[in-house]
């Protein structure tokens, strides 16, 4: 409190004058010289003017016998720092001696302040001041020594009430954040008369301020009631009346323009308004007001300090305070993080100079700071505590005294991320640029008039043109005349719709005049306002591909022509073959018929002229003719199987085998043949061809089982690697697997004609039919163990 209350020691000259006291204060430079103030004239009889003219000092008016006492008291006050008092005499201007009370104490700089006042009880006509009163000097000291405002109020209340012979006193204080008054201190006499009142006011319940106090607080002006009335508005008023109190005075204590407390005093007798009393109480209240003011301003200061502190501490930017040489005295946590310090301690051990990444930065920094006193938004690289390079923006304000920097405060913003992002962006731009320049594609921009605004170097190798000179030319200038109308139309449409395009082919002129095929893709570009401003295009030289394509399509055309020609030839051959087989069937058979017919006629008509040998010869001629006839028929069948147009339908193989086996049984009534036929074997194919195939196979089986007593023929199917395999198995003669590959060759026979007659065409026919159905056929056997014929056919899904 002593820091802030220097001026409290200083007595107010005005107040002293009002209270009829003489104040004095030693001069700061000459300790023995005292300045006089207050009720100087009243006490000494000298006017201030006379004192100045006569060069009178305190020592000249103090009675010479008491001077040594005065010196002693002054020395005591200086030594102890406490207030001392005594009685000394002074010489008044009229020559009379006056015994006065002396109080003095030490103030700042070892100065002495004191006051002199009358020891005589000044009973005036009103009899208002009954006792000698030592206030406000005592009060001033008490206020100074009080640890807080409440204590000060309490002390003042007590002293003032006692010394002014008030019966009771109360001190009320405004509560924080509200307009309510809180009873802070009370003064009640020990008399039992006031027991109820003191109890009521001192109880735990919150006492309500009396009407006068409330009014004074609201109006912020002193109030005096000479006679307390019975019309009480609050309970406290009634309590006061009941306690026998007759009059009251209250005064507001103001600070910062607001009432902060009220002092109220009550008397057990009716008492008219006493200006002297009011002066005194005003004096006290003003002193208390000053304390409140200080308290308030201290609070504000603390709060503002707190605010700044939190701004300093909690800022996201790194804040620091450093001494003139750059060594840190304070910093916030953001600063610690920013420079990667382990702790605040290690940060404060460091200094600003350690942060610069090079000497140039450092020199610039200090030079600029000295010159301008501040550095604003300076962007630079810095070194963090762990050696990392970071990028910062620094703001520093220097306090400069006598041309030397004594203090620095600064704020640092970390822009490393932004900086590295910028660098990454730059790198990526470079990468893209090199990509564009080394790309095999020619990349270019054109404006909305289709004039080149950018062209990559590739245009030189693709079109033989200078990428700089081409700028400003229209894209259409490059195109061949034949492409121009359609290209113009297409590009204008695209510009109209502002749409992307992919892989449009253009024919362009190379500088040498040759034609270059370009495949162009593009995307519209827009200006800052979002208006269409052209296309960005990428184009590829597809000339080689194009030539290859043309060649392929020419080859394809030729191939197609060839196919047509071949097909025609094939059809011709087919027709020839058909005619051939027709003539074979008729023309070859006719002579056979004659051979056979006339042989028979010869036998019948002239048989008796021949001997047995002659007749046997003729029989052989007939047999040969008949065998040749069968051969011809089989050959025709085989050729038909190859030529006939196929239909595609569901064919039930089981049904075919059943009906064919029935026919075969009928043809061989003398034989015992067991057929085992699986049901429901259905395939996709040509019914009549498949019937021929199955018939042939069955006839084959029946034929080769002819030597068995009991022939067993099975027809079924099994699954092999996901393919349906059909089989026809017999228990006949079988064949040697060595010759299995010859089975399906026309006219190939594995048995003697005598044993098993046949032309050797049947299995060849079967194979052709199966092959025409994209199937496979094979046979498995062992001589004497029977044979199994297997085949695959497309199965209906």
């Amino acid at each position: 409190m002593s820091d802030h209350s220097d001026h409290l020691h200083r007595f107010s000259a005005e107040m002293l004058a009002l209270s009829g006291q003489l104040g004095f204060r030693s001069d700061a430079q000459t300790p023995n010289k005292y300045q006089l103030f207050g009720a100087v004239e009243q006490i000494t009889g000298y006017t201030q003017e006379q004192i100045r003219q006569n060069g009178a000092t305190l020592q000249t008016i103090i009675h010479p016998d008491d001077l040594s006492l005065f010196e002693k008291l002054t020395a005591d006050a200086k030594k102890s720092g406490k207030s001392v008092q005594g009685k000394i005499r002074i010489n008044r201007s009229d020559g009379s001696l006056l015994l006065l009370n002396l109080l003095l104490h030490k103030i700042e700089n070892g100065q002495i302040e004191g006051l002199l006042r009358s020891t005589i009880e000044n009973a005036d006509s009103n009899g208002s001041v009954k006792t000698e009163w030592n206030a406000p000097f005592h009060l001033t000291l008490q206020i100074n020594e009080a640890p807080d405002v409440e204590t000060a109020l309490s002390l003042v209340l007590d002293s003032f009430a006692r010394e002014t012979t008030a019966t009771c006193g109360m001190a009320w204080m405004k509560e924080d954040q509200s307009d309510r008054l809180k009873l802070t201190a009370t003064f009640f006499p020990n008399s039992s008369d006031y027991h109820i009142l003191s109890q009521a006011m001192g109880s735990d319940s919150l006492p309500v301020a009396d009407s006068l106090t409330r009014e004074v607080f609201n109006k912020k002006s002193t109030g005096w009631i000479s006679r307390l009335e019975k019309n009480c508005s609050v309970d406290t008023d009634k309590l006061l009346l009941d306690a026998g109190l007759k009059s009251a005075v209250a005064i507001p204590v103001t600070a910062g323009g607001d009432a902060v407390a009220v002092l109220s005093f009550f008397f057990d007798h009716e008492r008219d308004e006493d200006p002297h009393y009011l002066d005194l109480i005003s004096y006290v209240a003003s002193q208390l007001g000053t304390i409140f003011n200080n308290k308030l301003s201290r609070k504000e200061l603390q709060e503002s300090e707190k605010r700044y502190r939190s701004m300093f501490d909690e800022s996201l930017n790194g804040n620091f305070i450093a001494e003139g040489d750059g060594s840190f005295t304070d910093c916030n946590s953001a600063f610690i993080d920013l420079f990667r310090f382990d702790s605040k301690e290690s940060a404060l051990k460091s200094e600003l100079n350690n942060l610069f990444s090079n000497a140039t930065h450092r020199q610039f920094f200090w030079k600029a700071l000295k010159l301008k006193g501040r550095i604003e938004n300076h962007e630079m690289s810095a070194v963090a505590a762990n050696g990392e390079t970071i990028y910062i923006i620094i703001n520093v304000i220097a306090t400069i005294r006598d041309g030397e920097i004594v203090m620095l405060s600064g704020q640092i913003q970390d822009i490393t991320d932004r900086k590295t992002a910028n660098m990454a962006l730059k790198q990526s731009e470079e990468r893209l640029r090199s990509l564009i320049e080394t790309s095999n594609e020619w990349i270019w921009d054109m404006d909305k008039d289709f004039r080149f605004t950018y062209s990559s170097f590739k245009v030189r190798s693709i079109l033989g043109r200078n990428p700089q000179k081409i700028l400003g030319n229209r894209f259409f200038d490059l195109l061949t005349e034949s492409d121009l109308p359609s290209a113009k139309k297409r590009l204008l449409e695209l510009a109209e719709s502002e749409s992307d395009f992919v892989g449009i082919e253009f024919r362009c002129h190379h500088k040498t005049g040759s034609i270059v095929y370009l495949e162009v893709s593009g995307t519209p570009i827009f200006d800052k306002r979002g208006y269409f401003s052209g296309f960005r295009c990428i184009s590829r030289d597809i000339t080689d591909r194009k030539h290859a394509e043309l060649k392929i399509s020419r080859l394809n055309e030729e191939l197609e022509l060839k196919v047509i020609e071949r097909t025609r030839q094939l059809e011709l051959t087919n027709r020839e073959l058909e005619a051939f087989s027709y003539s074979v069937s008729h023309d070859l058979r006719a002579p056979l018929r004659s051979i056979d017919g006339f042989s028979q006629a010869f036998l019948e008509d002239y048989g008796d002229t021949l001997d047995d040998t002659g007749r046997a010869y003729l029989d052989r001629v007939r047999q040969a003719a008949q065998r040749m006839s069968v051969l011809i028929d089989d050959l025709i069948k085989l050729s038909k199987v190859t030529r006939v147009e196929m239909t595609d339908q569901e064919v039930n193989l089981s049904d075919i085998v059943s009906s064919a086996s029935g026919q075969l049984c009928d043809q061989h009534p003398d034989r015992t043949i067991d057929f085992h036929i699986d049901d429901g074997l259905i395939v996709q194919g040509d019914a009549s061809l498949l019937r021929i195939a199955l018939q042939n196979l069955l006839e084959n089986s029946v034929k080769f089982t002819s030597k068995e007593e009991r022939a067993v023929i099975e027809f079924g199917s099994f699954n092999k690697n996901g393919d349906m395999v059909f089989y026809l198995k017999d228990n006949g003669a079988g064949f040697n697997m060595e010759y299995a590959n010859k089975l399906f060759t026309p006219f190939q026979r594995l048995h003697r004609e005598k044993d098993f007659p046949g032309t050797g065409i049947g299995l060849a026919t079967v194979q052709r039919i199966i092959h025409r159905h994209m199937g496979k056929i094979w046979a498995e056997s062992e001589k004497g163990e029977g044979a199994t014929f297997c085949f695959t056919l497309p199965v209906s899904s």
Partner: protein
Amino acid sequence: MLIEDSADDAILTIRALKKLNFQNITVSDSGREAVRYLYHENVDDLPDLIILDLNLTIVDGLTILKRLRSEKKTRHIPVIIFSSSGEEQDIQKSYEYGANSYVRKPVDFTEFEDLALCISNYWLRFNRAPASPQLA
């Protein structure tokens, strides 16, 4: 009546038919001649049966068959096609144009004799007066 341009076949056929006591066998060795004969106004003695070869020169068997079936005069005469062809197409066409039967010329003449017997039995004995044959 036999219409057959192959001399060998004609001889053998007649031989077979004679064995079965066929009388008055007229043989024509060309289609054109046969037609001229059949539609000659003086000819009233129409054959009971016509055996027709398909593979004739100049005017083929099917053309004759068509003619036979289109003319009122010959419409009712049974016609047996006697051909060396086993082609389905030929057989089908023959029936379509109104042939009463189709017999493939066998190489074995014994077989032919059996066939001739069947034909004569059917057409000349059991079915002497056939109903008007259907026109195709």
